[in-house]
């Protein structure tokens, strides 16, 4: 059965090659920091499933220290001057390899689900999308290598150039998910939910709706994830008050409540894969540039959600 372990070996191999590439680049200003950082990441992918939990935790701590001491970063790559000519030569066929991963992900998600070999599912049913994505990436990379007559070493070098420009931000989404688990174990959400229920002014349906939508957005901004905020805020405010006391429709209240949380996601560095990673990928000088661009939409939409819930739910 093909599942996540296969993808972890692939990722582990890629990060191992990135670490080796960093170590052998004598001109790189962050040569050994990058080597250590990507090497530890490779170790987590390759050995994480067999290591004790505390050792996995220490791996994360070590990577955070390397990043925190400012030892991870990009080098000075020479600007490449012939890209426009190359683009002219390939024409629109350049887009084909770029579209293979989404196409294969889609097709795989629908087609691979029921496939069995000898009574065993070919692909782990819970991970069909991720496995399809991995397969799409591998296929597209192979197709691109053949099309451009490039060597795998070139692909790895170009990949490393991008990975270096993302740097430590590439680990942040996974690290934040781990922090979310610690928050959950320490019942941080319950404490905030109780505080919200005890101290917010909740007289009347309008106040309750405002407290719920704004609370969802704020709590999501703290946790970086609306899924963590939803059960807590809904149990603290929406079910007892909006639904229970004032008779709001639970379907509408919950649907719009979740979407109010999404407004919070747009405003927070804690939602790193949506907000911090793209700023790094696009090489924006301001780490919070994407958040700044989203802020007006997020605030206006939060107001819209509050109005919609108040008008539609009662």
């Amino acid at each position, binding site marked *: 059965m093909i599942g996540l372990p296969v993808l972890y070996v692939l990722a582990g191999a890629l990060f191992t090659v990135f670490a080796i590439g960093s170590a052998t680049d004598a001109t790189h200003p962050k040569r050994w920091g990058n080597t250590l950082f990507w090497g530890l990441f490779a170790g987590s992918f390759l050995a994480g499933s067999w290591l004790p939990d505390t050792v996995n935790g220490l791996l994360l701590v070590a990577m955070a220290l390397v990043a925190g001491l400012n030892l991870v970063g990009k080098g000075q790559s020479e600007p490449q001057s012939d890209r426009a000519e190359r683009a002219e030569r390939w024409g629109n066929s350049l887009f084909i390899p770029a579209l293979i991963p989404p196409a294969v992900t889609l097709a795989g998600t629908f087609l691979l689900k029921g496939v069995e070999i000898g009574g065993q599912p070919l692909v782990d049913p819970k991970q069909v999308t991720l496995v399809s994505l991995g397969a799409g990436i591998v296929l597209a990379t192979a197709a691109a290598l053949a099309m451009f007559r490039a060597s795998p070493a070139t692909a790895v070098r170009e990949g490393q150039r991008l990975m270096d420009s993302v740097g430590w931000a590439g680990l942040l989404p996974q690290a934040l998910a781990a922090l979310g688990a*610690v928050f959950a174990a320490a019942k941080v959400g319950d404490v905030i939910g109780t505080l919200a229920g005890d101290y917010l002014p909740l007289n009347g349906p309008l106040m309750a709706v405002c407290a719920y939508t704004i609370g969802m957005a704020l709590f999501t901004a703290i946790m970086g994830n609306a899924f963590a905020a939803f059960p807590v805020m809904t149990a603290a405010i929406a079910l007892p008050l909006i639904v229970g006391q004032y008779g709001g429709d639970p379907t509408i209240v919950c649907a719009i409540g979740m979407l109010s949380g999404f407004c919070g996601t747009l405003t927070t560095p804690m939602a790193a*894969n949506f907000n911090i990673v793209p700023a790094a990928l696009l090489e924006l000088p301001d780490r919070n540039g994407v958040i700044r661009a989203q802020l007006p939409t997020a605030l206006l939409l939060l107001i819209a959600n509050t109005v919609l819930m108040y008008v539609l739910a009662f």
Partner: protein
Amino acid sequence: MWVLLGVLAVVVGFAARLNPLLVVVIAALVTGLAALIAPGLTPAAAWGGLIDTLAVLGKAFKDNRYISITWLILPLIGLLEREGLQERARMLIQRLRSATTGRLLLIYLVIRQGTAALGLTSLGGHPQMVRPLIAPMAEAAAEAQDPNLSDASRNRVKAMAAATDNIGLFFGEDIFIAIASILLIKGFLETNGIIVTPFALSVWAIPTAIAALLIHGTRLLLLDRSLRREAAR
């Protein structure tokens, strides 16, 4: 109550612009220690709590490795960029005389929302779509509007491209009945004795989706206007 110190650590750390990875790890350890605060806490118990926290953090870190699988795409994107993918995307836009940054991003917003509503969330994304295609296209359109585009405006256009991908995804995906957030709501309400269908939940995501399209769409067209004003100056 003391566990809120962990949240405080996050807020202070981000505000002080410390390295976010370091902030995350510190916040996790602070939360774990703060959960133990009670009269009679011994140093040995605190040390044990620290080790336990490290284990919870490490287990979750290991279990969430799938999040970082997306980086497997980087060699492909790098290879395509080397052959001029970004330049090709720019050329495509330069041929369209009527293309402006705002209109282009508005079309992308509609497509992203529409496909996400059909459950096709993997059709967009920052490494595979925004960096190689959408951002260069938006930049090229802005350059067509203003040949002397300032760096600040260029970065604003790029940030808006990323923002548009997020907004299209967030306020489209909830219209699809089998998306994780819909299933979470359904499951949560079920445990509280309220039975709802995913279809009803997804229908009530539509008003917000329309509001998102109107609000962000207007902002995109206003971006065009501010780019034009800057070009005229």
